[in-house]
């Protein structure tokens, strides 16, 4: 797509990447200061050529452009790719200077600032220039004029020529020559070179060289060029002065990837935010873990750190529906999963948030869109990058368990509380003493299960090599990568197989671009990965879960005689056996993506027209091979006379590895064809796009007939944009597409959107503050987007037949007839997609010499027609699966903002700060359920995901307090949690559950980080945080002695409990009980803890050897070494486990902390 824009005819007027949208805003404001501080000169400022042209003028200009400059434009197109130029072709005879200015403006976009009175004194000029630099033409204009000019960014300010005072004082003249290039060494043609406080001026030739004759060798030369920072160089009698001009880093020339194309950032109306590819290069395998907090508009949390299964949940602008809220993710234009994309291969990462940006995706766009483009080759010498990273990993935080002695003491206390009449303690003093002594760990174990299960450190590493380069006609980007991660589980040295948790991944990417003819371009991309994961025979959930239910004092991990321990029950399993004695699971997954795109420039038919077509084929496979077993388990009952263990066999294992497999796989075809139009007519810039696409994805291992049917959609999309003078922007988009999941008559939907933008800083009234604020844009968009990914069921328009309640058997005397049941599965209902009406108001601001830039958006979304299972059907209707309908409605609103501060201090220091912030709150308007009996129970009107539970009033203080309080189920005594009776009926039941806390998905996600660099050194930090979120605690292990016996581990926090002597009014635990005696562990405010946190997600120290002489001799063009610390430090009030894991008891594989050293070299 790049080529389409590169070759747009607008480039004829100026350079690519510098299309006129950006010109005016590039003003350097000190120039105005200079002008204003000169009291002798009174200027009137006119914005040249205000918009009063009628259609005839427009048409005339079209004609002129068509007839006079066709050749010129073609020529320009070719050179423009490599270097900047502002060449002019102009043939006029004896015309006013004003007319010449007009022509120059049209051709180059350059603005003239002048005083009308002054211009009247000017002489008519004749010019005959063919493809001459602008500066050369200007020299011709002003050669014999009483006027001179100064280039200030993109403005040419006309002044009267100062009187030549130096005529008498003649010093020896000097001729200075040299060459002007940009930072990449590309020669710059047309750079204006002027003597400060003098009349001498010239401009560079095509090869960047210049020659200027100066009255003496003591002056200062000023080099100015549009889009570049001007430079002053003292002559000091030198004869050769070579200058490197720096491009002004305003970012306004940046191009942003948008739906089916790209746009210049300045002219953007849609709410789109981007992540720099650099920010994604962190020591994690899964790209999805890095998104939240890195970019405005994304709400996300990561719930597991298990290698290979550490996908984060990502929601663009939060969750606004009851159905799927996952955004549409497109990699190189095709719907693909990005988790395993190597960040090194990413060229751009855009998040499309509002309707204007996403309406073209129609029924797929309502949840926002993520667009990732992989790198492509650039013409030039081959560049090879090689990189190696080695990381050491650790759990961020895991729960701590109480030791065996504490366990037994607490159990005795709890048992006494629940069974006050029993004279015997649960555990005798003798047993406690023997456990404390630790002399017989077989009979008196004292096990810290986490120590048994986990190693202290794991590791991850990655290596990558990529190469890019090519000629004008063919460019390539090739990359291979390897990622390896070892988890923190221990293994049994004696087992002959490897149950270690391990994840390897090999990536490759290749992108080729071929310019087959002058107007035809072919892009070919193929990329893929293969991953190989090795896991214990039991799931992470099972292992962690059993560590939470196995108390420390029942069995040792293994008996000293080598026999495996297991207690006599089916649901409290030895976690060590689950981890190390259960065999192993090998899982390999692979993915291949391929796409080919042909782009044809149709400029011959109509200038600015081009067509493109793409076809892609993707394939994904996964194979899970389980070789699992169980071991015989024993439990010691004592010792015989000889001191040998007496063991009961408590479970019979399979002893040998079994075999099981499961497979998954999909394939996907995607086809797209589009016609693009882009042209400018003077100040009017117009683009258009019509696109057709279709996709077909099939699940090769579907579990049922319905899901085995290919998933298809098709549609057309269109976009038109219009910009007037880079000031007023308008855009309209539509998607018209269909999804196979709906009834034939309701398949296609039309999703329009429009947007308006106003670049206020372009207005004349803005000029007074233009020295503080360089750029200010307001934009608004409104549109409708759909979501066909409505979950629940596919093809809801047909009824299904299902298995019903189950089977039934008949037959006696050895006969058997077992019939599987059949029943109506789902009733047919008329359904359609969800509709999201979205509004977005955004402001973009750059100020203080572009050092600060701020983008802020407020948004509002009404999601209607959410596919919901009807909740208003009485049960006596007997409908097994409640029918669905488009009944739900959710309103979502929020803000997101990005702040960028970038300041260069002196030549060597750069300080930068970036930050982003996202807040959203979605409110349930209709959840298709019957209303609840009490207002505080209502879901409607509350935020989506609102938590409900009891409100605690602290702990009961006395028996009288219990007696005088509303009835609570079970035995309640001082020290138990007292709840609020919301409906005042004298008893605590579910009717008293109201909204508590926020919910498990944060409302606020933010990130920020400073970067400081000095010469080659740089230090960068990135903090990520979430807020307005909470964690609800529950489950075995958290709730002590929940089932009244040796089931359930205890957290170390157990000692912080209520006792008659404890004066703390809010200890962590209420009165301990043995069994589920009362409502202490019901969902309540007592157990909802603030889940907000801020973590130092990355800390990066790097040193760049760029420019070191020895690098060249080693054949390198660059070398950098760096350290990255990931998840190093977390600030949170929540201390039990890694707070990001969320609700429950922390029984998940936690997030990882990584210390990573890396080296990267570039060969050129």
């Amino acid at each position, binding site marked *: 797509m790049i080529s389409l824009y590169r070759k747009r005819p607008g480039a004829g007027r100026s350079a690519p990447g510098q299309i006129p949208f950006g010109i005016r805003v590039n003003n350097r404001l000190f120039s105005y200061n200079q002008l204003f501080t000169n009291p002798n000169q009174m200027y009137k400022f006119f914005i040249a050529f205000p918009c009063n042209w009628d259609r005839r003028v427009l048409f005339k200009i079209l004609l002129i452009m068509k007839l006079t400059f066709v050749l010129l434009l073609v020529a320009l197109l070719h050179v423009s790719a490599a270097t900047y130029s502002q060449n002019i072709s102009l043939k006029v005879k004896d015309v006013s200077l004003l007319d010449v200015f007009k022509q120059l403006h049209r051709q180059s976009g350059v603005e003239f600032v002048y005083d009308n009175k002054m211009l009247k004194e000017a002489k008519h000029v004749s010019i005959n220039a063919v493809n001459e630099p602008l500066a050369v033409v200007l020299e011709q204009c002003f050669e014999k004029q009483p006027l001179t000019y100064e280039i200030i960014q993109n403005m040419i300010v006309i002044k009267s020529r100062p009187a030549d005072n130096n005529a008498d004082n003649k010093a020896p003249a000097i001729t200075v020559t040299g060459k002007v290039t940009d930072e990449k060494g590309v020669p710059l043609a047309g750079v204006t070179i002027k003597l400060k406080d003098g009349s001498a001026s010239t401009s560079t030739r095509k090869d960047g060289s210049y020659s200027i004759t100066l009255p003496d060798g003591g002056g200062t030369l000023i080099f100015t060029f549009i889009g570049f920072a001007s430079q002053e160089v003292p002559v000091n009698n030198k004869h050769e002065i070579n200058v490197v001009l720096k491009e002004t880093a305003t970012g306004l020339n940046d191009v942003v990837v948008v739906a089916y194309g790209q746009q210049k950032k300045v002219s953007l109306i849609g709410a789109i935010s981007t992540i720099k590819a650099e920010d994604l290069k962190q020591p994690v395998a899964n790209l999805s873990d890095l998104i939240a907090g890195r970019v405005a508009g994304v709400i996300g949390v990561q719930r597991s750190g298990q290698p290979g299964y550490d996908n984060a949940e990502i929601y663009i602008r939060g969750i606004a529906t009851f159905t799927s809220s996952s955004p549409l993710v497109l990699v190189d234009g095709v719907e693909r999963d990005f988790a395993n994309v190597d960040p090194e291969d990413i060229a751009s990462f855009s998040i499309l948030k509002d309707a204007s940006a996403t309406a073209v995706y129609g029924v797929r766009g309502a949840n926002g869109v993520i667009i990732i483009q992989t790198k492509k080759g650039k013409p030039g010498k081959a560049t090879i990058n090689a990189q190696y990273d080695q990381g050491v990993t650790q759990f961020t935080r895991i729960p701590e368990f109480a030791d065996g002695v504490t366990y037994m003491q607490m159990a005795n206390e709890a048992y006494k509380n629940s069974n006050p009449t029993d004279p015997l303690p649960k555990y005798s003093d003798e047993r406690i003493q023997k456990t404390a002594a630790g002399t017989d760990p077989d009979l008196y174990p004292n096990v810290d299960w986490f120590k048994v299960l986990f190693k202290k450190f794991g590791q991850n590493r990655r290596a990558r090599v990529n190469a890019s380069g090519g000629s004008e006609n063919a460019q390539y980007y090739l990359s291979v990568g390897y990622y390896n991660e070892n988890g923190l589980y221990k293994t049994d040295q004696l087992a002959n197989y490897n149950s270690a948790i391990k994840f390897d991944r090999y990536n490759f990417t290749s992108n080729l671009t071929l310019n087959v003819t002058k107007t035809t371009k072919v892009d070919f991309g193929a990329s893929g990965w293969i991953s190989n994961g090795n896991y214990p025979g039991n799931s992470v959930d099972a292992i962690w879960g059993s560590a939470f239910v196995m108390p420390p004092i029942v069995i040792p991990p293994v008996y000293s005689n080598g026999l495996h321990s297991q207690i006599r029950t089916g649901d409290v399993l030895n976690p060590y056996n689950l981890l190390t004695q259960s065999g192993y699971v090998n899982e390999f997954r692979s993915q291949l993506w391929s796409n080919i795109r042909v782009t044809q420039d149709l400029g011959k038919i109509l200038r600015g027209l081009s067509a493109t077509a793409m076809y892609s084929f993707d394939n994904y496979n996964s194979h899970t091979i389980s070789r699992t077993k169980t071991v015989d388990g024993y439990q010691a*009952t004592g010792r015989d006379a000889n001191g040998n263990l007496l063991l009961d066999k408590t479970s019979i294992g399979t002893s040998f590895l079994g075999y099981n497999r499961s497979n998954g796989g999909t394939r996907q075809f995607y086809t797209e064809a589009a016609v693009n139009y882009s042209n400018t007519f003077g100040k009017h810039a117009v683009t258009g796009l019509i696109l057709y696409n279709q996709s077909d994805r099939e699940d090769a291992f579907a579990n049922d007939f319905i899901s085995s049917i290919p998933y298809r959609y098709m549609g057309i999309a269109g976009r038109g944009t219009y910009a007037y003078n880079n000031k007023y922007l308008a855009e309209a988009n539509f998607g018209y597409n269909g999804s196979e999941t709906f009834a034939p008559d309701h398949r296609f939907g039309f999703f329009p959107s429009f947007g308006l933008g106003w670049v206020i800083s372009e207005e004349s009234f803005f000029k007074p503050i233009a020295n503080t604020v360089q750029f200010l844009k307001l934009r608004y968009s409104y549109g409708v987007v759909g979501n066909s990914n409505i979950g629940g069921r596919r093809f809801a328009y*047909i009824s299904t037949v299902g298995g019903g309640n189950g*089977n*039934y058997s*008949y037959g*006696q005397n050895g006969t058997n007839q077992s019939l599987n049941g059949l029943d109506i599965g789902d009733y047919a209902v008329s359904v359609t997609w969800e509709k999201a009406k979205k509004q977005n108001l955004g402001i973009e601001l750059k100020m203080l010499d572009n050092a600060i830039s701020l983008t802020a958006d407020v948004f509002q979304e009404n999601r209607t027609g959410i596919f919901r299972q009807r909740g208003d059907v009485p049960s006596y209707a*007997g409908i097994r699966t409640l029918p669905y309908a488009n009944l739900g409605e959710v309103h979502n609103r929020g803000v997101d903002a990005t702040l960028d501060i970038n300041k260069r201090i002196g030549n060597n220091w750069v300080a930068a700060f970036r930050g982003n912030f996202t807040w959203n709150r979605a409110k349930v308007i209709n959840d298709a359920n019957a209303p609840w009996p009490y207002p505080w129970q209502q879901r409607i009107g509350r935020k989506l995901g609102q938590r409900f539970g009891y409100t605690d009033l602290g702990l009961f203080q006395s028996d009288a307090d219990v007696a005088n309080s509303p009835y609570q189920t079970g035995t309640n005594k001082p020290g138990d949690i007292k709840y609020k009776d919301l409906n005042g009926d004298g008893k605590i039941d579910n009717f008293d559950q109201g909204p508590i806390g926020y919910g498990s998905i944060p409302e606020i996600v933010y990130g920020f980080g400073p970067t400081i660099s000095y010469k080659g050194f740089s230090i960068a930090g990135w903090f990520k945080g979430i807020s307005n979120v909470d964690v609800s605690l529950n489950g075995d292990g958290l709730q002590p002695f929940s*089932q009244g016996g040796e089931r359930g581990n205890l957290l170390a926090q157990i000692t912080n409990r209520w006792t008659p002597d404890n004066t703390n009014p809010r200890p962590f635990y209420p009165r301990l009980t043995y069994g*589920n005696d009362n409502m202490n562990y019901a969902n309540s405010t007592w157990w909802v803890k603030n889940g907000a946190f801020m973590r130092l997600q990355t800390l990066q120290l790097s040193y760049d050897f760029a420019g070191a002489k020895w690098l060249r001799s080693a054949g390198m063009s660059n070398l950098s070494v760096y350290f990255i610390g990931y998840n190093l430090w977390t600030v949170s009030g929540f201390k039990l486990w890694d707070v990001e894991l969320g609700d429950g008891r922390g029984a998940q594989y936690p997030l990882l902390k990584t210390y990573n050293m890396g080296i990267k070299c570039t060969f050129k």
Partner: protein
Amino acid sequence: MKNTIIKCGAVLLMVTLIFSSSCKKYLDQVPNDRITIEQVFQKKGPSEQYLANIYSYVDDLSEQWTQNPWLGNADEVDITWSKYSIYDLNIGNIGPSNAIFDRWGYYYNGIRAATYFLNHIDGNAEILALNGQQLIDQYKAEARFLRAYFYFLLMRQYGPVVLVGEKEIPADATADAMQLPRSPYDDCVNYVSSELDKAAAVLPRVASNNGQASDVQAGRATIGMALAVKARMLLYAASPLYNGNTDYASFKGSDGKPLINQIYDLQKWKKAADAAKAVIDLGLYQLYKDGSGDPVKSYQGIFLQQWNSEQIFNRKSNSLPTWDTHCMPRQAGGWDGIGVTQEQVDAYFMKDGKPITESSLYSESGYTNVNGVQVYNMYINREPRFYASVTYNNAVFQGGNMQSAAPISFFVSGPNSKNGHPTDFTKTGYLVRKNVGTQTNAGSGGNGAQQARPLALFRLGEVYLNYAEALNEYSPGDADIVKYLNLIRERAGVPQYGASANLPIPPSQADMRTRIRQERRVELAFESIRWFDIRRWKIAAQVMGDVHGMNMNKDGDDFYKRTVVSNHLFRSPASYWFPISQYEMDRSKLIVQNPGW
């Protein structure tokens, strides 16, 4: 400019043409020959599968800790695990908003499926071709029987219910159009009773295929099943809880009519007696007796002998092996947690046919050496059904993973005690032995063997007792009363009333009532009967509350002390019926909640 427009238009037109010509087919993907509900009712096999699905709602009583509360929430059994909802029910942690053991929607699913079947099976082309209208009529009668049975299951748990009628409520109707009220209990009884009669008029006497008795169809509805369900329902309907129970004077439907009849009607007992007699008069069933004449084996065989002559209504697929494992001691690899209460132990007669309170044989002191094991005298000289039903301390057991018979000790230092396992131990010092398949070996250390057998939901023994009870109310002194009561005792190996001067026929109606109730409690123990009996007799408030067992914290003599082990809370009037869930109350505008909730 014009050119531009024309060209753009041409391109647009082209794109649109391509698009519109291909799109229709591309998205039309759902094949026409997939299975549809219309197809199901045109074919024989799928229709039978549909019918099997209706059957699958038949009560599986073998799971008594989260699915059925009928044992653990009565006074006969204490179920040990606090993680199961039976525990919550016993401590009173139940309510409309926490409707545990809620079966309201579940049985209505079965009712809807049956109604749909009745309304759609006619004209099934394949069945008509193969078997003719006769089989369709039989299947319809089966569905009609099942629907009536599901209504009965709802009524016993919730009292008056919603009668939906002959048409299923359309799935796409508005919520307002779906509203129906609860019908008075008597209306429900009359409706179900007439439905059962209708079904019985068509159903075969024995499971049949094309009119021929067929083993492979065993388990399908028969006349006996319909009449047995009717007999039990009418017995319930005649009982004090439902028959003129003025406690429910204010329990009215949304139209203001009382849901429970306020006037006692003696004729209801007659109907109940007649209905029970009708089952007996079918002549299809006999009490099961073991060939050896050993009453313990006879009594155990009622459940363990598959498809025996006493069983009327069996559920073939069930989870009895799981029940077995839960009942077995840990020594046998079991979960050791279905504990018989002391109250139930005390209910068993002595071998002289008298209750422990009246028999001279009963003693609560000392031990007797039985096969080398000291057995507490409380367990000596009891009736055979006690030994067939209860595992007490030092009772001999063999099964599960026990290779040989051994005494089972519940002493605190013993292998089945509260020590040595976090959660799996009986709190009462007894375990259920009745209907425990000893060949099941699926517990810890087990080989996974399962002793599969049908679950008897209705059996002739209960019908005899139903008959005796109803007759004693309607026609005290009728000779049939003591006849059928004694038939039960005879099989159980207990001396019959009137057989000796020591054990006379109970002289008064009240005496007889007491004896019948004692007999029901023992004979029908652990069969999900007691829970309903203590409620319909309105004695639940007296017999529930604290339940007792032996002292599990002790060894030796100290063990044999009656100890409160648990409390099975009964709150009047709430505990008579289950609450209708708040979920349903919120959606059903015409439904009134049960009293007390």
